[in-house]
């Protein structure tokens, strides 16, 4: 076989794998239509990928005819990650090799309610399982991120009022009852910290502070490679550090918290006269597009947050600060003023300067962290219990051969 033919073959193989991932599961006929390859090529590539353990096939019925459904091969079970944001729900499924097999976002109403949101989250998990040709039996566990400090055992929000309408909801119990699977719940900034330190911008660092800037601000702390949650799960709740002693009363009951100065209503309010009523997404999009007013608001927020993070950096002494969350999509508009504010107030280390970097995982950081949390818990259970799930790296299906 000549070089160009084999590289064409490789490209076609990659196209088939890419397409199967995109649609979850499809028949060979559908694969032919979706890739534009010939039926013979698709058939022989599927055979190859099947032999290499990259895809699975099984019988199904399409339009009343028998057909072969092609799905991505999964290694013993799937984990589900759910990120509940102030205005979005993100759900993703991954197998034990950390490969994301399905993902879906859903907009949420302002002040969404625990019962409706958890119901939608559960149904979305089930829908996504169906999309990849799996069932609830394949689910090994569910990880959930909430935009509030939570008690890990029950999933109860530990500070009253910060997540309106969720105060009395034991998220772990509600979801475990619905799905009959292990459920782990954590704060979204903690999960973002976990994800960025495992496969994002803080890979290879031992001590990391992750700052999530969006409708509210939160931080996650990784110490010596382990997530530090604190005794009550409130470690890193910098959104409730006081920055303005004469400021407004916060949802948590204190006065002048960081969230009242750079949180959701505070960020859009200064723009009402010049820009009309904007959503947070509008501000982010316009700041990224170069709108001077929106850039000003985001930059000022960065400077204030940087001041608080500087105090945190003094206490924790991290190797790097990773900036994530919705506002981080503005890139250096947010990160540069944060970096300056931190540099001004952290005079410490002459030898190794503190890195302040944008996150690599974007708004997906928390949902990826939720998946990592579940899979790490599953790995531990496998390591201490049955040995058959022990080393997931052996069965990685990345190389199609």
């Amino acid at each position, binding site marked *: 076989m000549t070089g160009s033919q084999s590289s064409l073959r490789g490209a076609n193989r990659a196209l088939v794998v890419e397409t199967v991932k995109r*649609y979850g599961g499809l028949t060979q006929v559908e694969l032919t239509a979706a890739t534009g390859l010939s039926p013979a090529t698709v058939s022989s590539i599927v055979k190859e990928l099947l032999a290499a353990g990259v895809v699975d096939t099984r019988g199904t019925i399409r339009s009343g005819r028998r057909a072969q459904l092609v799905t991505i091969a999964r290694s013993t079970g799937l984990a589900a990650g759910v990120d509940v944001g102030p205005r979005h729900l993100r759900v993703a499924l991954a197998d034990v090799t950390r490969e994301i097999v399905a993902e879906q976002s859903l907009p949420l*109403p302002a002040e969404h309610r625990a019962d409706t949101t958890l119901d939608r989250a559960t149904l979305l998990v089930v829908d996504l399982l169906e999309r990849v040709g799996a069932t609830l039996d394949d689910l090994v566990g569910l990880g959930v991120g909430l935009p509030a400090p939570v008690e890990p055992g029950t999933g109860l929000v530990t500070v009253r009022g910060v997540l309106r309408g969720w105060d009395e909801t034991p998220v772990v119990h509600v979801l475990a009852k619905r799905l009959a699977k292990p459920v782990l719940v954590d704060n979204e900034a903690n999960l973002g910290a976990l994800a960025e330190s495992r496969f994002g911008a803080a890979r290879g660092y031992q001590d990391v502070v992750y700052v999530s800037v969006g409708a509210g601000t939160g931080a996650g702390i990784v110490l010596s490679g382990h997530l530090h949650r604190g005794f009550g799960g409130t470690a890193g709740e910098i959104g409730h550090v006081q920055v303005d002693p004469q400021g407004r009363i916060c949802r948590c009951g204190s006065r002048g918290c960081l969230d009242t100065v750079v949180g959701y209503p505070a960020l859009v309010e200064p723009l009402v006269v010049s820009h009309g009523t904007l959503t947070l997404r509008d501000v982010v999009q316009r700041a990224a597009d170069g709108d001077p007013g929106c850039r000003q608001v985001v930059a000022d927020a960065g400077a204030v947050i940087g001041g608080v993070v500087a105090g945190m950096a003094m206490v924790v002494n991290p190797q790097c600060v990773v900036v994530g969350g919705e506002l981080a999509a503005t890139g250096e508009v947010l990160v540069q003023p944060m970096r300056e504010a931190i540099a001004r107030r952290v005079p410490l280390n002459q030898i190794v300067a503190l890195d302040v970097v944008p996150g690599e995982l974007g708004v997906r950081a928390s949902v990826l962290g939720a998946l990592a949390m579940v899979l790490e818990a599953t790995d531990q259970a496998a390591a201490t219990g049955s040995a058959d799930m022990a080393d997931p790296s052996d069965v990685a299906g990345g190389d199609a051969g």
Partner: protein
Amino acid sequence: MTDATRVPLLSMRGISKRFGGVEALAGVDLDVHRHEVVALVGDNGAGKSTLAKMVAGVLTPDTGLVEIEGVPVSIPTPAAAHALGVATVFQDLALCDNLDVTSNLFLGRELRDARGVRDDERMEQVARQILRDLTSRIPSVRVPLAHLSAGQRQSVAIARTLIGSPRIVVLDEPTAALSVAQTAEVLMHIEGLRDLGLGVVLISHNMTDVRSVADRIEVLRHGRNNGSFDARTTGYERILGAITGAVRADLGVPPVAAAS
């Protein structure tokens, strides 16, 4: 964005419509700005779909003024609506079961090449591109509509609105009878339309869906406006109050609702 100083994309003033003895609409006002999702909510028979059909050119108002970007217009036919940049997804989707996905997308506005011959290849390319942009899960653009699921058919109906770069998109109950995953895709798509700077009119019974993506919620009750609410700051109770008539815009806010 609800910037009152700018000229609305779509402005309807004093719209009335009678069907014999039925007064479907009586002096209804509706404004839609660019970059804005306006939800039209109300009980059955409140006049939501009638209003949508006027924007789509299916019905014409008996009285009232319709302006698009400040220019008074009349929309006598669906073709006129299309020419004015209005795209509509009807509740019953209005698709042809026997035709394939591409034919449905381009129905009535088929692309033609320089010689005036129907350009099937280009239509298929565009169809594939649009469905890809929508992250819809329709693997083949050649499959007849009859073979698609409810969610996939909804995707096709929505994809149809993207042909011909519209300015205003009207969606009548786009999430009724869809699974949560399919609803998620439709709502993400509505956010996408808004980000593109389009004006979107969303008609829905589902208050969660409405409050998830709308900027402004306009309540219709018995063919009349019964309140306009900021979707970000107004709770379910106020909106439901307006829909059910517990709160009447013409009578002012009753003491109970004012206290809450």
